[in-house]
């Protein structure tokens, strides 16, 4: 078993120490995480992998501040997330985390612009700068001409790009992507992954949760979970250049 401490790029963005999460289901106690310690530094590109039931989703919820640990500590940029109230967690999610989900999770009745500017609405950003930043994010994902379309007028790949724009717009510490290509065909999936690669190149910290090796291969470090514990934590070797990149011209 390999348990090499991954080299931290810069000071830790995320620091988990002996995080335990137990759920009570009926009268049985389920230990989803049994003592996970993980450090992720600024501008890291980490894939979290593991079979279902490994605690992968629980860990993602924990990192995304959607849930708090039963014991152990979690510092996000030095902030003790474990002891925060619901509303404080909402603020942390708003400012520090950008979510990208497998099912996109856009608001169906709102247009692209409104979907993207929503985090800024909850951050209390004034209307004008909110609009400006949202349009910038939309342009960054290449959807400037679709700003006033509704999600159901877009393809799956475009929807996911809207979700990425929404994750980016608040300038978060981490982009947390949960199976971001799970609902997309492999070609579109590659496009989305290239977008993550670009974000990484521009200095963004990205955490991918996936069970696909192809997708995980984009990351520079892979953390494998099994039965609520970290099984391995390795730095990926020479970055495998995806074959599709050679044929598809860059934007």
């Amino acid at each position, binding site marked *: 078993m390999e348990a090499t401490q991954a080299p931290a790029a810069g000071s830790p963005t995320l620091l988990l120490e002996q995080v335990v999460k137990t759920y009570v289901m009926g009268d049985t106690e389920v230990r989803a995480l049994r003592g996970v310690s993980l450090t992720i530094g600024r501008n890291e590109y980490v894939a979290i992998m593991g079979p279902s039931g490994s605690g992968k989703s629980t860990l993602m919820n924990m990192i995304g501040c959607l849930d708090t640990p039963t014991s152990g500590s979690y510092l996000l940029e030095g902030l003790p997330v474990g002891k925060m109230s619901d509303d404080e967690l909402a603020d942390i*999610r*708003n400012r520090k985390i950008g979510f990208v989900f497998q099912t996109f*999770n856009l608001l169906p009745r709102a247009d692209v612009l409104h979907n993207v500017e929503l985090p800024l609405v909850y951050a209390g950003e004034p209307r004008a700068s909110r609009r400006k930043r949202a349009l910038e994010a939309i342009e960054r994902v290449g959807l400037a001409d679709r700003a006033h379309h509704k999600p159901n007028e877009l393809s799956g790949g475009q929807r996911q790009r809207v979700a990425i724009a929404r994750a980016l717009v608040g300038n978060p510490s981490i982009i947390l992507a949960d199976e971001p290509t799970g609902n997309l065909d492999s070609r579109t999936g590659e496009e989305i992954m290239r977008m993550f690669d670009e974000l990484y190149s521009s200095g963004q910290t990205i955490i991918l949760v996936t069970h696909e090796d192809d997708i995980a291969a984009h990351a520079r470090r892979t953390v494998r979970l099994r039965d609520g514990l970290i099984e391995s934590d390795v730095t990926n070797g020479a970055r495998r250049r995806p074959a599709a990149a050679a044929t598809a011209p860059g934007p």
Partner: protein
Amino acid sequence: MKLGLDIAESARISLSALMANKGRGALTALGIIIGIVAVITTMTAANGLANNFKETFSVIGADVVYVSRMPWIIRGPDEFARFNRRPQIELDDGERLAQALRGRAVVNPYVGTRELVRYGSKTLDAMQITGTTDKMVVMSGTLPETGRFLMPFDLQYRRAVAVIGWEIKERLFENRDPIGEKIRVGNRDFRVVGVMAKEGQGVFGGTSTDVEVYIPVTTFAKIFGGRQRGFDVDLAIKGMSPDTLADLEYEVIGEFRKIRSLRPGEDDNFSINKLDTLVTAYNNIMGVVVGVGLMVTGIALFVGGVGVMNIMFVSVTERTREIGIRKAIGARRRSVLMQFMFEAGVICLFGGLVGIVVAWLAGIAPAWKGARQDPIEALRYE
């Protein structure tokens, strides 16, 4: 600081949600509309009845105290039996009271019976025949439209003259001038000397001068006094100023006890009546009626509220995912709460406003009728 943005966003979300489910929102608002209309209509009706009541009984006079054998409001047969044993109030009692209150109040007797009234071949059954004096004009402030009212010499000489109500004149004489004509009341002839102005009738059907025949009380005594065991007189007493009604009431009680030679400690064997007693009784009854009405309509409104609650439950349930998304990207509890509060608020506000407008339009119908009146017709109407 963030509140304004929260409100703007909530408004935006809830309005778009409502627009997406127009029919559902409209039906829910309908519940509120019905509730509001019901409540407003009940309150308006109660108000209208109260005004109508006041109009109907304004004949009685708010500043007049009545001395009668019976109180106007009798609770149960036991009370009736007890009051029925009281001695009758005679015309003499009235004169003595007038003497005692001379310079402080006007006393006017009223005595009534029902008789057949006939003119030529036309007969009116069981009309109200009221024996009174010339002082009635002071009491009620009503004057004959044509001719004159009773005069002191009518009373002094027990003349067979009558002042008839407007409706009686219409039914007996139609368009002919009744002044100087002879009508038959019971089995006596009376000469018509005046016709009272039209008064109209309230919904409560209180006494109206329109269907009465006024004759001198002395003549009344001469003709009808001999039968049965005499007749019961009501005495109306009007003070110099309406402000001193309470004082007047005490004085009247005192003087009438003297007339009745009651010893201290003995109960009054007569009753003091005034409009106030009726108003109090009316308010008690109407209070209950309006209370029950408001309760029922309140339930209608409540049911409307339950409708809103129901629709909000549905709305929250079907947007569980949306709430999840919003919370994940940083919505606080307050923001989510506000979003749904706003939606409920819009439905209720819309329903309430439409309800008010509907109730208001219902009030417009009579107003419209009034506005398009022909002025000539309107002026002729009394």
